[in-house]
């Protein structure tokens, strides 16, 4: 029961949705399943949030290395949760001024908005911007002409990098039919055009093949899940 039940639910859920795709009156079941998933994922936040609290409270009580930072996690977590759920500092919606809870929880000027604007946004955006540095160091370290594959990888990146800036355009702007009529046949070699060709030919071909392969991989994986061949996440006993 503990294992066959979930296996049956998996198979039934999946096959019903596959069949529903061909039956007009059931065609919106897929969307319904997606909405249900969102609800379940939102409910699961209780598990995740609880786990987060548990992990960090344990570190604090154990006085584990760096427990002070766990304290910061717990405080910022609980504070944000409280001001967001209780809508601290949120005015009712202008449409319904008599409904105290009708305001948007992320309304400008509310406590939750302050946290969003001055903590969440700068922190996430700066984390994201670290990528600029990492990309430079990766380019320096990994792009070495060790073999044909590596040469193609770095050569293409090189052309795109140049072709997408003003400098690249200037570099090959001498290939101009106005300079010499014969250049009319070679304008394709101008960097900005070369970039477009690489994107529309090789990039298209490569991505298409990858996408076709991925679709086949997803078909096989989904089937294995539905047939109960892949089932490690359903536990044992």
């Amino acid at each position, binding site marked *: 029961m503990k294992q066959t039940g979930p296996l049956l639910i998996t198979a039934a859920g999946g096959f019903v949705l596959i069949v529903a795709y061909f039956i007009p009156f059931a065609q*919106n079941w*897929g*969307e319904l399943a*997606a*909405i249900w998933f*969102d609800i379940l994922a939102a409910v699961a936040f209780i598990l995740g949030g609880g786990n987060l609290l548990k992990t960090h409270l344990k570190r604090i009580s154990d006085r584990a290395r760096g427990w002070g930072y766990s304290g910061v996690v717990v405080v910022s977590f609980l504070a944000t949760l409280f001001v967001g759920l209780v809508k601290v500092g949120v005015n009712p*919606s*202008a*449409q*319904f001024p008599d409904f105290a809870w*009708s305001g*948007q929880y*992320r309304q400008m000027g509310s406590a939750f908005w302050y946290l969003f604007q001055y903590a*969440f*946004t700068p922190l*996430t*955006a700066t*984390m*994201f*911007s670290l990528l*600029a*540095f990492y*990309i*430079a*160091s990766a*380019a*320096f*370290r990994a*792009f*070495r*002409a*060790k073999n044909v594959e590596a040469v193609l990888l*770095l050569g293409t*990146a*090189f052309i795109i*990098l*140049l072709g*997408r*800036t*003003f*400098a690249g*355009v200037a570099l090959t702007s001498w290939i101009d039919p106005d300079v010499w009529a014969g250049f009319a046949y070679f304008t394709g070699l101008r960097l*900005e055009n070369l970039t*477009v060709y690489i*994107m*529309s030919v090789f*990039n*298209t071909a490569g*991505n*298409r093949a990858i*996408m076709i392969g991925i679709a086949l991989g997803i078909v096989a994986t989904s089937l294995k899940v539905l047939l109960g061949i892949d089932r490690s996440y359903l536990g044992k006993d």
Partner: protein
Amino acid sequence: MTEFIVNQWWLVAIVIASLIPLVMRIVSAGLLETLRTLDRRWIFLLLLWAVLIPIYFIGVTGRTFPEVPSVLARATFDEIDRLNPGDPILLAFDYDPPSEGELGPMATAFVYHAASKKLRMYFMALWPLGAQMIDNTIAKVITPDFRDLVYGRDYINLGFKSGQEGVIKVVVTNLRELYTTDSRGTAMQDIPMMEGITNIQQMKVIVSVSAGYPGTKEWVQYAVTPFPSLRLVAGATGVQAPLLYPYVPRQLPGLLGAIKGAAEYEKLVVDAYGGANADPKYLEALRRMGPQLVAHLLIITLIVVANVVFLIDRGRKR
């Protein structure tokens, strides 16, 4: 340039001072050895200066690099520019603050273009934070510069709906099924510009500004593929753009890739509607192309240097 260096001597001093340890290292250990064992933090520092100095330079002097719009940027521009005043246009903003740097200028330019053309704008978002991005863009463009446009008559924020691509599937045939109110909670029947609008197929153009899933790809898959008469143009991040090229031009007639695409489109819009002294806030991407250029050149130099060192070493081994 010289004037800039003289006036901002302190910045020059900081940059030079910060590089002194590296120079000392090169002097003591030799250039090749330094490069071979280069601490990646030196690369980080070089990149920081490569981005920061151009920003500062452009910020002080106000100069930008010229942009030549590419075919795709022009195609995007034309898709919107051929519309007539009052035509409905859907603006789907599926991104969040971390992608603001790339997509913010595009969103601004799209709204500026649509507002200048007096199109009826319907905003919606599949990302929770997209609704915020819509409000920000409206506050940046429409509220200060198009005071004659009225909310509910000329533009509307339908807000965020959860359900990812499921939302697209539904609104393509029946908008009212999911959207009974706008983001402010006003019922649909009380909004003048919603009269007669029952689904997304009535939009003349769909503009998708997206940073990932769900985004432009899902709009192609679930809106344009089943209803090929829909016209979709997109602004995408540099990461997303290569994945969208396979859809160009049949399913996706216009595509702006990364800050470069934004700068090209910005230029087209500002040239057409901004006048001689365009508000600098509409030139954000053009300004950002400066640091872009220098950083690109730095990365190219790094690749070249790394390969020279690599080839010298390989030559010695043989």
